[in-house]
């Protein structure tokens, strides 16, 4: 077991979370101007120090598929790692929750805190060399999946106005959400053209590997190899330069190799039990105290702890609540099953443990469903209960709530455990930083 290296002190973590929680609070009469704090990417957010030797290329192994159709909004951890290197938002949020410039060099708000004006960086360019204009931002946001931004308009070539649905005293981190990344369609309808430090095209990417070439000097080529079924220890032997994993065996193995260093990433996922309200049936008698008492984290082979508040879904102004008072309860299913998405071992282990404890009722069994079946069943509320993995931190809570939680019925949601992954890096070949949501960023030397 590799000990987790805390990124932030407990006091600092509390401050960050508080800042996130307060991001949707009532507006202040004074306008905010930014950036007011130091730029992100400082040493506090680095989990692996800089390279001792310059490499022409880095080999990064990912264990999930990468589909350009999803870009720039990731659907899994692999896509999150790849897309984060390719696409930029107007701002970025570092591991401490501080908002810093990205495509926008500065921003300011009106007195009400609803209209935010961003000034784009002069040297911002798309991969094809075209300058990034305010119209490009407006075009990118035309199909935005967010309810936080009511409207967006280009003031001039480099100035963009965004009107929020709710006023904010400070710049909300949702502007760093991948859904608001600036991009434009590629002529070949392949990878969208982004503005990040690396670029990918149809000729450099396939289902097995994605080759991200640097646009600036001093950066190596990053090759993301998609290896979903391999023993991850074999990957470390090949050798892979970077591997993000929650495989305990791989972590143990990496601990035996001097040339490898591992670092714990922030707690990035919270597993919750969602139980729809039932007609004529009591909901599972499960509460956080029970979870803590039973030591549910022991059932998980990966790095886990008892889930700890705060939870973004509990206090997100303007977002629907999971309990949805007034929604009719669902009919009880014929078979009482605690379901989970097949392929997620942590969810399976938690479902198994809940069944073993009898915590979700007698005669309840665990059942794995394909991801598509699981998503359909979750939205329909047709199963007795669900073990769902939610991101620990999100930039746009409402969007994540629509994407990950059921919306048509009332349900109880009980947090179970928090989990995190570890980055195994070949010593001295790359400098890695991490964002607020646990996204790794390959930093220039």
């Amino acid at each position, binding site marked *: *077991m590799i000990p987790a290296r805390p990124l932030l002190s407990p006091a600092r973590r509390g401050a960050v979370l508080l800042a996130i929680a307060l991001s949707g609070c009532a507006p202040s009469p004074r306008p905010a101007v930014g950036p007011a704090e130091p730029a992100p990417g400082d040493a506090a957010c680095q989990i692996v120090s800089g390279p001792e030797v310059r490499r022409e290329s880095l080999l990064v192994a990912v264990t999930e598929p990468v589909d350009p159709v999803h870009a720039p909004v990731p659907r899994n951890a692999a896509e999150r790692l790849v897309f984060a290197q390719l696409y930029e938002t107007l701002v970025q949020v570092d591991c401490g929750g501080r908002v810093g410039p990205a495509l926008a060099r500065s921003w300011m708000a009106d007195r009400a805190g609803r209209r935010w004006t961003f000034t784009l960086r002069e040297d911002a360019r798309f991969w094809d060399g075209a300058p990034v204009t305010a119209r490009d931002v407006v075009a990118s946001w035309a199909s935005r999946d967010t309810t936080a931004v009511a409207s967006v308009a280009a003031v001039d070539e480099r100035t963009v106005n965004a009107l929020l649905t709710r006023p904010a005293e400070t710049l909300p981190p949702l502007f760093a959400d991948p859904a608001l990344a600036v991009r434009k369609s590629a002529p070949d309808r392949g990878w969208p053209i982004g503005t990040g430090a690396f670029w990918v095209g149809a000729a450099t990417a396939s289902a097995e590997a994605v080759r991200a070439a640097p646009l600036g000097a001093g950066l190596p080529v990053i090759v993301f190899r998609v290896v979903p079924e391999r023993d991850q220890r074999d990957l470390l032997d090949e050798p892979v330069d970077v591997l993000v994993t929650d495989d*305990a065996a791989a972590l143990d193995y990496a601990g035996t190799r001097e040339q490898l260093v591992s670092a714990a990433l922030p707690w990035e996922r919270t597993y919750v039990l969602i139980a729809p309200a039932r007609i004529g049936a009591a909901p599972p008698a499960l509460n956080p105290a029970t979870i803590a008492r039973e030591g549910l984290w*022991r*059932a998980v*082979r990966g790095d886990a702890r008892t889930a700890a508040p705060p939870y973004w879904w509990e206090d997100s102004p303007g977002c629907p609540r999971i309990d949805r008072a007034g929604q009719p309860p669902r009919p009880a299913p014929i078979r009482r099953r605690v379901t989970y998405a097949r392929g997620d071992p942590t969810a399976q*282990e938690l*479902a*198994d*443990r809940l*069944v*073993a*404890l009898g915590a979700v009722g007698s005669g309840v*069994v*665990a*059942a*794995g469903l394909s991801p598509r079946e699981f998503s359909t069943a979750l939205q329909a509320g047709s199963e007795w209960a669900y073990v769902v993995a939610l991101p620990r931190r999100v930039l746009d809570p409402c969007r994540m709530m629509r994407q990950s939680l059921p919306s048509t019925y009332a349900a109880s949601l009980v947090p179970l455990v928090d989990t995190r992954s570890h980055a195994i890096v070949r010593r001295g070949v790359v400098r890695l930083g991490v964002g607020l949501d646990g996204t790794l960023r390959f930093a220039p030397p």
Partner: protein
Amino acid sequence: MTLRSRILLGFGAVVLVPLAVFGLRIRTEMANRLTAQYQQRVQSLVAIIRADLAQQALGIAARLDALKDGIATDNRFRLAALQGTDQRYLLDYAGSAMRLAGLSLLQIQDDQGRIISSGHFRNEYDRLAPELPRLLTRAPEGTALVVARTAEAQFLALARLDSLRLGGRRFTLAAGVALDSGFLARLARDSELTVALALPGDTLAAVDSAGQAVSELIVPFVAAGDSAELGSARIVVQHSLASLAALRRGVDLSFLAAAVVTAAIALLLAGWLSARISRPLAELARKTTEIDMDRLDVVFENARDDEVGALTRLLGAMTERLRGGAVRLREAERRIAMGDLARQVNHDIKNGLIPIRNVLRHLVQAAGEGPERLAGAFQDRARTVESSVSYLETLAANYARLYPQPAREPCDVNEVVRETLRRIGSSGHATVRAELADGLPRARTDSLVLRRILENLVGNAVDSLELLPGTVTVSTRVGGTTDGGAAVRITVADTGKGMTKPELERAFDDFYTTKPGGTGLGLSIVRRLVLDANGALRVETERGAGTRFIVELPGEGA
């Protein structure tokens, strides 16, 4: 029922009944033997399963021994189990050990009955489950079927128990192999054999063993749950009787086919045999019905040397004797008739000569009394002589007409009719008329014979009117066919008084007459002449309405 039907039924019974008995016997014997074989196979399989389960139990015991040895030397396990360190290693220990040992169930409990590591259900750790080791300890030979639990389902396993001591504490190991449908299917190596497991309360317990080859093996059973008790499960072996049923169907079909073919052959044989027997008999019967005193020319010939041939020859000989008898009878009749005729002639001549002799005596007496009296006497008695002579002449003419010599040359019937009626002439009270058909074929009969026939019939018809007004009609027309040719039908009808039944019965007898001065030979002669001409004669009469004589003569070319 006809002879043919009896032969057919007899053949069917003789052939089909033994075949049916044979088929049923074969069917029953086959079913009994196969059922016995099936039962033997079922018993054998039960013995194999019993041995297999014992072997499995030994294998589990051996693997438990190996696990115990491994645990005893594993310090990491010891520390985790006794000191509470490295809990994750302890939780995963049973899973790894179970897979390495080729087991499906492995549960390690501490001395409190608390699960510290479970191979088949990793996350059931810390659960108190002391019932399983307690009941397994009580099971005969330490082996029992166990309903094991995972998070997703339950499964059945054949399990054993063992224990070891670590640091003064006792740990129990329950291990087993899955007894799933695949395991049972492997036990039933024959596709016709099925092995099923009947747990307490299963509906399989109500298997109907009457119609199947069934045997079962009792195995100790531990159900799931905290209130589990040691019960009994049954491994039920059944042999499908489908093959026997199929065999029965095959036999039935074969038997049915054999019965149909045999019946068909039997019917054909019976038909051929019955035809061979009954057809000659029917032919004999038909020929026999043709035999008559007037028709004794029927020929009975058959070359067969069997009973039918002998019967045919007997009938032929009998017919031959009948023909001889008929000839003799006719001769006798002829002689009788000639005797009667001679007596009649004698009587008639005497009747004619007596007056003449009396006249001669009178003339002799007169001549004796004087020649002058002779002339007077002659004068007185000449009419008597003449009358007697005339009587004799008439008598002679009548006898001369009794039997003419036939010429047997084809004759024109209409012409003969016209000639006869012309010769007869007309009578004052009777109207004689002819209704002659055109295109009449010539009759194969002598014209003189035909004229004799017509003279007798027309004369009788006129006489039947008894001097009263009436009509005699002679008509001709083409009659029915005889021997392949057309016949000529001559009808002589009168409107007289007709005949009574006794008169009709004796009408053709010789010397029978109802007329004064009649010879009683007319119709007799007519009948004989018609028969001699190969013709037929019949009479239709009605008292008070008249009589019709119908003569059918063969036509020319017949």
